[in-house]
């Protein structure tokens, strides 16, 4: 199926394959799936309308190599809609990682999805990132992860301390 043809299923394998392609093209050093789809790896499924790919830029300049990433994916049939790149009708955000998100990429768990090797934020890093952002939906995500995921409490505590974060009152 051509990459610009909308899919009736969520085209996550295409997203992960594309992220691996960016590493092969030396446009990024490393990456991991973050955001809602990473949370869903650990908790019950819920509606989300995009995928967040956090990457360690190969280009350490101000643009983090984003223009080259866009050009590379557009050449493969991806479309641009505002801040998203769109594959098969599904929006994807490519976000340069640094600080806590950089650590989350480096320490991400290795998985395989539909035969595609990938990395995904650890549950503990997802909680810490949600604590750092602090929107109502982040608090709800923390609550879900505390209830449903098999969290390593010691690891979570160390991450929170390292980044001077506290869990919100739920």
């Amino acid at each position: 199926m051509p990459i610009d043809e909308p899919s009736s299923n969520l085209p996550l394998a295409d997203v992960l394959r594309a992220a691996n392609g960016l590493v092969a093209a030396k446009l990024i050093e490393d990456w991991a799936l973050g955001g809602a789809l990473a949370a869903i790896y650990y908790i019950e499924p819920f509606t989300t309308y995009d995928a967040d790919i956090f990457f360690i830029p190969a280009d350490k300049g101000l643009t983090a190599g984003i223009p080259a990433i866009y050009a590379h994916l557009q050449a493969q049939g991806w479309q641009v809609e505002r801040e998203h790149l769109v594959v098969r009708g599904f929006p994807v955000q490519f976000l340069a990682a640094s600080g806590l998100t950089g650590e989350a990429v480096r320490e991400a768990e290795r998985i395989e999805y539909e035969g595609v090797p990938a990395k995904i934020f650890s549950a503990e890093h997802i909680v810490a990132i949600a604590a750092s952002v602090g929107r109502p939906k982040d608090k709800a995500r923390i609550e879900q992860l505390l209830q449903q995921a098999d969290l390593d409490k010691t690891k979570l505590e160390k991450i929170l301390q390292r980044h001077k974060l506290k869990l919100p009152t739920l």
Partner: protein
Amino acid sequence: MKLEMRQKLAREPFAEKIRKVGQLIRLAKTFPRRASKSTLARASAK
């Protein structure tokens, strides 16, 4: 939904959960959420 049910869903394979997310997106697009009565009342009061 009961907590045990949600925990059971959480333990499903990732691919199955992603398939369900796809279903939820299709449902949300087919049946977009209607504005509540209070939202409509606020809008008409403006």
